[in-house]
């Protein structure tokens, strides 16, 4: 089990805490725009139809998110958000599978 103890994960996430305040309870919209839902559903549908393992999608998503360089101390509102990363990951995977 991975019970994290402070320093252990610092290297892993390379994100340092900052003074920026966290969103509160009410900030809990799941989707903002219609395209986010479609992109979300397509990634799952393709996995469920056996075009790829979920882990393959997930690992691309992780690298997309990491490449944004956004941290708590340094939020970048001008950079793409979560579902933009999701969409780019889907496009990459579809190209890799020669579907796109």
């Amino acid at each position: 089990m991975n019970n994290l103890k402070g320093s252990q994960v610092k290297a892993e996430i390379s994100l340092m805490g900052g003074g920026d305040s966290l969103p509160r309870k009410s900030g809990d919209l799941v989707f903002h725009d219609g395209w986010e839902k479609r992109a979300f559903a397509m990634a799952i549908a393709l996995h469920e139809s056996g075009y790829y393992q979920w882990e393959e999608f997930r690992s691309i998503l992780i690298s997309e998110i990491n490449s944004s360089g956004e941290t708590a101390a340094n939020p970048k509102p001008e950079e793409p958000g979560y579902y933009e990363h999701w969409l780019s990951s889907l496009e990459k995977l579809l190209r890799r599978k020669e579907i796109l």
Partner: protein
Amino acid sequence: MSSNHKHSEPANPYLEKRRNGEETSELEKRVSDIEALLISKGIVSKESLDRMIEIYENDLGPMNGARVVAKAWTDDEFKSRLLQDGTSAIGELGFSGLQGEHMVVIENTPEFHNVVVCTLCSCYPWPVLGLPPSWYKDAPYRSRIVLEPRKVLEEFGTFLPEDQEIRVWDSSAEIRYMVLPRQPDQSKGASEDKLVGLVTRDSMIGVGLPKSS
């Protein structure tokens, strides 16, 4: 932050990250291009995507996790199965599926309070909690909850006793965590249905506590 924000508006960096109209139409086009292609190849249908969105928006959600917690509060044997093998005990109640594999349920005690994060992306137990709220997916939560959990919990309005240790659990593809919150003392003896109403999503992530009544 501009001063004309309403007081009720949360300080949510994600909300600042809204796209303008032009960006949104570009994104819409990228998505509809993929969708049209997949439909023309017979890989997906519009109806199956609609149905899937409906399931994720309506059928999966914290109401399922709340059932699991309420049952654990009222049934000791279920609770020990749940802590032993989360995936199969949760499956007994009919909740399973993508991102619901490899579930580990961790119990809050007077000594330890547990809180869950996914530092790498957004791993989250969909069948029992639904899709994650936006703050769970954003960099501030993913980094700060590990480094200063007590402070972050306080920002959520959750104040724990000084001597209760906070443990942070990092979900991944291998293990997805869910917190079993402590049953509020005032609710002992209440029916399972009544208890379901006390269990909040945030209490199962660990950033909050159940309602007391």
